[in-house]
Each structure stands twice: as structure tokens, then as C-alpha cells.
């Protein structure tokens, strides 16, 4: 297995007036090239912070230790402009809410071509041609006409497709997708998941797919890591984690899900689960 990204003993704390709040505690993770690495966890588990830290977008009050190896480069050691040749070009990111990821006052063409011209130094005509190709690639109908339109003229699912096209514009090796389908309806989500999978299989793209939804994880990921309270408690191939989970936390997550193996199938299962007092994991 060739690891495209290797996270070694990454810890992150946020400085506050009362001291440092730990968010990530000694995370180790290898992301295999050409695969979808799923990262699942409940709210507050640190999964989003892990994604942000890879591209150097963690808050300025964060203190980090450890290494994030991207090839022979330690991303954590890079700051400011030194990250520019990597961020947006070799590692791209998409977010939960595509309406805030896209600039409402810029045309789709401008958003697709700005970073392409900066990173790849291509001409306006060439970047325009590539932008049209990209829109077509991610399934936006009438790609040429769409270039001169604005984000609000598209639906949520289409906007997420445009955000994916923006992320792909400079031909990245790694795509970090942070809850990209959470804001979408299930029928729209199905299309985005199929697109991500298709891009991985055809372009050899590597994806870190962050989600709270184990159903989504099961559909799209090759390898799965489960996070709780800043630690990865279990990681492995998809079928192993879903069918033969090792950690009690993974087992308890699956037991509370309809549709999981050993999960909720009938109302009696639900009654048994509901009988357990409490259930919020962080308290």
C-alpha cells in the first residue's frame, strides 16, 4: 500500500483564557492513494478539525504537534505562502454548504478559472475551455451557458457539483470532502456520492471523506476510520469495520442505526435500545 498522506501522532489544542482545550489527541492515519478514506464521528469528535489542519486552515489559536507527511513534505511545518503550491493545487477541499463555498457575486467561470490561472499559469482562453470541460465532467448540463451564470441560479446539488469542479480544476491528488452531502436531500445525495466514486475510479483521485452518516460512509468509502473525542478508535477496510467491528464504540454506533448489520431492524430492537438510559457519548 502506498500512502499519499500520512498523519503521525497529530495533536491539536485550542488556546483559551482557561488554558488549552484538546481537540485532537495523537491521531495516526494513512490515506492510501487512489482510494476513498472515510472519516466518521459524531459532532465534536474533531473530524472536521482534522480535515482543516491538513490544509493549514485550523484556527490561529490552535497549537499543533506531530507531522502530516504529504510525500516528503511535512505540511504542519509549512506556514503562510509556503502552503500555496500545495493547497488548492495538490490538495483541494469541498465543504458541507456549497452556497457559502461559492462567492455569490462572481460568475461560475470566474470561480472555476481564478485559481487555475494562478496555479497553472494558463491563458484565459485555455482556462475557459478547461472550465467548460470540468462542468461537463461533474454533470452540469449546458456547461458553456452555465459559465456565465451565478451560484444562486443553481440548486443545492448543482452548487455542490460546481464546488467539486472548482476543487478539481488544478488536478489535485487529494480531495478533502467535509460532509459534502449533509445539506442535501437523499435523492440528490445519491448523485453526488456516485460522482465522487466515479472520479476516484476514473481519475485515480484520493479522497478523505468526512461524514457523520455511517450509511454514506458504507456506500462510498474503501477504508473507514471512526473518531471519538479527538482520537481514532478504529480504522480498517470498510467491510471489516462494518461487519466485524472491534471497538465497543463502533459497535454502539452501528447498534443505533437502522440498516446496519446488527443494527435496528424492528421496533423491538428500537425498544431495547431506547431502554438504555442517556446515550449522548460525550457526557
Amino acid at each position: 500500500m502506498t500512502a499519499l498522506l500520512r498523519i503521525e501522532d497529530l495533536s491539536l489544542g485550542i488556546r483559551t483564557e482557561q488554558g488549552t482545550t484538546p481537540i485532537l489527541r495523537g491521531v495516526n492515519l494513512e490515506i492510501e492513494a487512489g482510494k476513498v478514506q472515510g472519516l466518521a464521528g459524531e459532532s465534536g469528535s474533531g473530524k472536521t478539525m482534522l480535515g482543516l489542519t491538513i490544509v493549514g486552515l485550523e484556527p490561529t489559536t490552535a497549537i499543533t504537534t506531530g507531522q502530516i507527511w504529504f510525500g516528503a513534505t511535512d505540511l504542519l511545518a509549512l506556514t503562510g505562502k509556503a502552503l500555496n503550491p500545495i493547497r488548492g493545487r495538490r490538495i483541494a477541499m469541498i465543504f458541507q454548504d456549497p452556497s457559502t463555498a461559492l462567492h455569490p457575486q462572481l460568475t461560475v467561470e470566474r470561480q472555476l478559472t481564478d485559481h487555475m490561472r494562478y496555479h497553472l499559469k494558463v491563458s484565459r482562453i485555455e482556462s475557459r475551455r478547461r472550465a467548460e470541460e470540468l462542468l461537463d465532467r461533474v454533470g452540469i448540463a449546458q456547461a458553456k451557458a452555465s459559465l456565465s451564470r451565478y451560484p444562486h441560479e443553481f440548486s443545492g446539488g448543482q452548487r455542490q457539483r460546481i464546488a467539486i469542479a472548482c476543487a478539481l480544476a488544478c488536478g489535485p491528488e487529494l480531495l478533502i470532502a467535509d460532509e459534502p452531502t449533509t445539506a442535501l436531500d437523499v435523492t440528490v445525495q445519491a448523485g453526488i456520492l456516485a460522482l465522487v466514486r466515479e472520479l476516484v475510479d476514473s481519475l485515480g483521485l484520493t479522497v478523505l471523506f468526512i461524514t457523520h452518516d455511517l450509511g454514506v460512509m458504507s456506500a462510498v468509502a474503501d477504508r473507514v476510520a471512526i473518531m471519538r473525542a479527538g482520537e481514532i478508535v478504529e480504522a480498517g477496510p470498510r467491510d471489516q469495520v462494518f461487519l466485524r467491528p472491534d471497538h465497543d464504540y463502533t459497535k454502539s454506533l452501528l447498534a443505533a442505526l437502522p440498516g446496519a448489520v446488527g443494527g435496528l431492524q424492528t421496533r423491538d430492537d428500537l425498544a431495547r435500545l431506547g431502554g438504555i438510559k442517556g446515550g449522548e457519548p460525550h457526557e
Partner: protein
Amino acid sequence: MSEPVLSARDIIVDYPGYPPLRAVAGVSLDIHAGEVVGLVGESGCGKSTLARVLCGLLKPTAGEVVYLGRTLKPIGVAGQKVANTGIQMVFQDPGSSLNPRRRVGPQIQDGLDAAKRRLGGEGAAGAPTSPGDWLERIGMNADDVNRFPGSLSGGQRQRIATARALAAAPDVLIGDEPISALDASTQARLAYVMSSLTLAQGAGMLFVSHDLAIVRLIADRLLVMYQGHIVERGPAEEIWADPRHPYTQALLGAIPLADGAGRLPAVTPPGTHYPLTEAIR
């Protein structure tokens, strides 16, 4: 079957605009005591609008809501009529439906007071009579009465919102996406707590959600809504096992299951339109 507690008759809701947007396009439904009805559909289908009409928060453009045999008048500036406090609602975001500056106890007491005013005497028979007892019933500690909503987790706040609603001894509880903002492991538990306590009080429940996988576990009957219309209705297990309407089929097929099989959910081409007539079961 007995008389329904709450019925909607040919409800139409138009939101103003050019042209007006028809959010609910002629919906009729009944909710009986002792049953959980699941109302499912995707964003923009009109399910929340319908829920707001059913509890009197929104005046329909046409049609009427019948509560215990009489027409429900929408809530006015003077607040809810005492007689109508038998319809209670739990909303999606417990952070905004609880008062952040009041302790939890008095907020549950509001519900108990509403029951006393409506039913007379000590309120509902057999139900907890103090906020502390209600907290224990809902799976929290009686000491939590002195806490503020801000110091509680989302799941705990939603439990409080449920306790407040049930303390009013409702005839019908309407939950508008009450579990959507919570973590997956909390969702199923809360859905169970809400529905089982509602049924224990002998009330009926309308559970509005986009998450069919959980709704079908707690609901006796399902209503599937699409573009303002109910396109399929029937027993929850039957619809889950054998959806008849093409929209219901697409909706069920798109749910990703955490079965570890790596199977992508079925994709429907964008812009697919489905018939708006109700499927015959």
C-alpha cells in the same frame, strides 16, 4: 376506527409571490389517539408547512383543521386558546424552542400548568406531576431542573422540549423534524422515547421527518409527501417493503445503508418529475 383527534380537510397553503407558491396542494389526513403517523418527504415538499397548519401556527389558504370535532382557529396575537393546548409541537432546533434565560424546571412547569388549566384539577391522571418527575421519565436527572438549556447537549435539550410538550397532556403531539439536528446514535433513542411516551399517555403523534429509515421503525402509518401532495399512504412496514409510487421508490432507493457492502444508492436523473396522484394500495 374511533373518531380522529385531529384531521386536515383539503388543506391548501399558498405563499405570496409572483406567481404564488403552492406549498400544500389539497391534503387531507387523520390522526387518531394511540397511533404514530410518519410524514416523510424531501426539503420543499410542504411537510413542515402542513405541520404548522395542523397545530394552528399557520392559517391555511383554504381547507380546515378539525380538532376534537370542531374547527381549529389559528393562533392569534392573544396567544393560544386554553382549549387548543391539547395540540403540542416539538421543533427541529431545541436551542431556539426553549427559552435560554429560564431554568429547565419552570419551562416544564408551563406545560403542567397548561394541562391543569385545560383539564382542571391536577391535570392528566397517571402522568408525572412535577418537572423533576418529568425529567426522570424522559431519562434525565431530577436535579437538572435548575440547569439552563445552554448547559445541556442537543439531545438533552430535545428531551426537555419533549417533556414540556407532554407535560401539557396533549391529545396529539406534532414533531417537526425533532431528531434531525442530533447525532445518529441519539436520533433513534430520542425517536423511541418521544413516541413511546406519547403512546403511554394515550395521545396520537405526527412525526415529520426526511429520515425514512428511522420513521418507519416508530410509525404505524406513513404519509409520503411530494410537491405539496401526499402521493402514498399506508401501513409503515408495507410501504417500506413494497413502495408503489415511483417517487416513494426513488426515495427508498436513495437511502444509503450502513451495511458495509459498499453499494452506492440508486441515482435518479436530475429533473425527474413524478406523478402527483396518490398511489393506490
